[in-house]
C-alpha cells in the first residue's frame, strides 16, 4: 500500500504541474487585465498541435519543437489580444465583452483546427525512458514536465520580482490608473502579459501533450480544471495557482486511490464551491499582485 501511495504522490505532482502551467497564464491575465480569457485552453491545444506538426511533419526532435510551440503561442496571444481583447477593454462593460469575445475566439480556433488538421488524436513521443526510484516509476517525460514546469515558474517569478517589466506589470495589476499616472504604458504591459500567458499555455501544451496525447479537444478539457485551480488558488495569484495546481493534482491522485476517482472529482468540486462561499479571495488571499 505504501508503494502505491508513493507512486500516486509522484503521479499527482506531475499531473498537478500540468494544471499549474495552464492555470498560471489564466491567473496572470486575470491579475493584470482583470478579464477572463476563455481562449486560453485553445492556446494550450495549439501548443500541442505545433509540437505534433514539428515532430511528425517537420521531423524535428521533441526538444526542438518546444521553442516553436512557445513562438506559436506568442503570435496567437498577440493576435487574440489585438483582435478580441484590446478593442473591447476600453468599454464600460469591457470585462464581460472580453469573456464573450475570447469564448468566440476559442470556438473559432477549435473549429479551424478540426477543419484544417482533422479531428484525429495523435501520440507525441516526448523524452524517452522511465526512471525507477524504489517502487516509484516515473517516465522521462513526466520528470521533464516537472523540471521544465519548475524552471518556467522560477523564471516567471524572477521576471515579476526582479525586472523593470515585472515592476510595471505588478503596478498595472494593482491600479491601471495609478500606473498610467506614473507614466507606464498600460497597453504595452497588457499586451505583453497576454503574450507571456499565451507562451506559458502553449509550452504547457507542448510539455503535456506527450503525456495526455494530442487531441483537438485537449484545451476544452484542461481549461475547466484550470478555472478550478485559479479560483481555489486565488484569482490573479501566481503562487496560489502553482500551489493549488499541485494540490489539486495530489488530491485527485491520493483520493482516487483511497476512495475512487468519482469521490476525488466530487471532493475537488465541493472544495471549489466551499471556497467560493467561505473564502472567495482564494487560498492565498490576495486579490491581485
Amino acid at each position, binding site marked *: 500500500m505504501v508503494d*502505491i501511495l508513493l507512486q500516486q504522490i509522484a503521479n499527482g505532482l506531475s*499531473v498537478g504541474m500540468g494544471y499549474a502551467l495552464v492555470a498560471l497564464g489564466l491567473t496572470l491575465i486575470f491579475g493584470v487585465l482583470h478579464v477572463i480569457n476563455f481562449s486560453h485552453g485553445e492556446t494550450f491545444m495549439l501548443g500541442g498541435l505545433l509540437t505534433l506538426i514539428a515532430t511528425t511533419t517537420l521531423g524535428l526532435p521533441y526538444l526542438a519543437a518546444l521553442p516553436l510551440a512557445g513562438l506559436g503561442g506568442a503570435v496567437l496571444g498577440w493576435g487574440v489580444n489585438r483582435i478580441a481583447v484590446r478593442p473591447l477593454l476600453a468599454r464600460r462593460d469591457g470585462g464581460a465583452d472580453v469573456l464573450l469575445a475570447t469564448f468566440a475566439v476559442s470556438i473559432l480556433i477549435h473549429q479551424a483546427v478540426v*477543419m484544417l488538421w482533422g479531428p484525429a488524436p495523435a*501520440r507525441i513521443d516526448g523524452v524517452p525512458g522511465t526512471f525507477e526510484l524504489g517502487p516509484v516509476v516515473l517516465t522521462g517525460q513526466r520528470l521533464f514536465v516537472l523540471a521544465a514546469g519548475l524552471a518556467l515558474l522560477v523564471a516567471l517569478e524572477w521576471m515579476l520580482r526582479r525586472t523593470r517589466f515585472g515592476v510595471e506589470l505588478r503596478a498595472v495589476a494593482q491600479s491601471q490608473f495609478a500606473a498610467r499616472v506614473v507614466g507606464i504604458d498600460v497597453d504595452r504591459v497588457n499586451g505583453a502579459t497576454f503574450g507571456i500567458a499565451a507562451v506559458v499555455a502553449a509550452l504547457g501544451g507542448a510539455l503535456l501533450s506527450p503525456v495526455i*496525447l494530442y487531441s483537438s479537444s485537449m484545451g476544452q478539457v484542461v481549461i475547466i480544471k484550470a478555472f478550478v485551480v485559479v479560483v481555489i488558488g486565488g484569482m490573479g495569484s501566481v503562487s496560489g495557482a502553482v500551489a493549488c495546481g499541485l494540490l489539486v493534482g495530489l488530491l*485527485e491522485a491520493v483520493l482516487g486511490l483511497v476512495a475512487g476517482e468519482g469521490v476525488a472529482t466530487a471532493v475537488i468540486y465541493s472544495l471549489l464551491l466551499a471556497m467560493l462561499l467561505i473564502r472567495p479571495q482564494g487560498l492565498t488571499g490576495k486579490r491581485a499582485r
Partner: protein
Amino acid sequence: MRTLFRAALLAAACTLALSAAPRTAALAADPVRLGVINPTKSLVGKQGQQGAVVAAEMINADGGILGGRKIELVSYDTNFLPNEGVAAAQRLINQDRIRFITGEISSTVALAVLQLAQANGALFMAAVPKHPAVTSGYDRVFRLNSTTAMDAKDFDAFLVEQIKPNKVAVIAENSDFGRLTIAGLKKLFGDKVVAAETYEMTQNDFNTIVTKVKGSGADVVCLAGSNMEQYGNILRVAAELKLTAKRCVMPGILNSEGVRIAGPAADGAFSADIYVTGLDNPLNQRFVAAYKARYNELPEKIEVLGFESIWIVAKAMDKAGDATDPGKVARTIHDNAWETPRGTVRFEKNGQAVAGPLINLEVIGGKLVAAKP
C-alpha cells in the same frame, strides 16, 4: 455602377443556367438519392461517411441500380447531438423528400432520429449505434453493428476457455457501455474480478487508475472504452508503469488508429470484432482497394458499416425494383441475404444484422491482425 450591376446580373443568370442544366439532363436517368447522417467533424463520423461514399462510387461504377440510375448521397452532419440529428433527418424528409436515411455513429442520435423516421414511414439503416433500443419495434429500422450482448456471447467463451485468467481487472469508461461491461465481467468471473475502475470520458491522465490495477495483482486487464485516445493512452501508461498483465480490449473497440496512438505499448493486446481489413473474399478485396485508392488509408469496421448502409439499401432497391417505397425496400432487405465485405449479412426480425462469429484479433508488431486459432 452600371457595369457592376450588369456583372451581378450576368453572374445571377449563369448560376441559374448552371443549376437548371443538370435538372433537364437528369430526366433521362434520375439519380436515386439516399440520405446519410454522420457526426462528420469527428474521426469516426468521417470514417463512416467515407465508407458510404465508396459504396456509392462502387455501385455507380457498376452502372448504378434500377437500369442505370446512379446513387447520389445527400449528407448532413449530426455533430453527436440528438437535436442536430433530428434537424438533419427533418431536412432529408421534408426538404429533400428523401425517405431513406442511413449512417450515424451515436446511439442517442439514432434513437432520436428513429422517432422521426417512424413518424414519417422512412427507412432507417443505422450503421454503428450499439444501443439495444435502436432495433425495437419498428419494421423499417435496421442496425448493422453488433450489440454489446452479441459481442459478449462470443467473447466471454473465448476469455473463459482460452485466456483462463486467475485475477481480472477492468478499466472502463463511465458510460452505459463501461458499466455494463463491468457488470458482465463480474457475473462471468465473480470473485476473480479484483479491480473495477471507471474513468470519465474527458479524462486524459491514467496513471492513478493503472497504478491501482497494478496493485491489484490482476493477470488479465480488460479495457472497455470507446475513445481510442483514451484506451490507447491507457495501454501506453500500462507499459510505462511496467504492468505485466495480459491486456484485453473488449470486442468492437480496438482499431488501428488506437494501436497507432498506443505505439509499441499495444503489442500483445488482444480483442475481437466483426470485421478485419484482411478478410479474404473478392468483394472485400475490391472494397479495400477502392477505399485505399480514394482515401489512401485502409478501411476498418466503421468504414465497412458505413459502406454496408448504402450498399445494402441500394442493392435492395434494385432487387425490389423500387426506389420510392421504404416499406417495400424494407421487406426486401428482410427477405434476402446480402453479400458485403464482411461476408453474408442477414437481418433478424427486429432489424438486427447477423453475420458470422466474431473474429479474434491481436496486435503484432504494431499491426492489428486476425489472431491465429
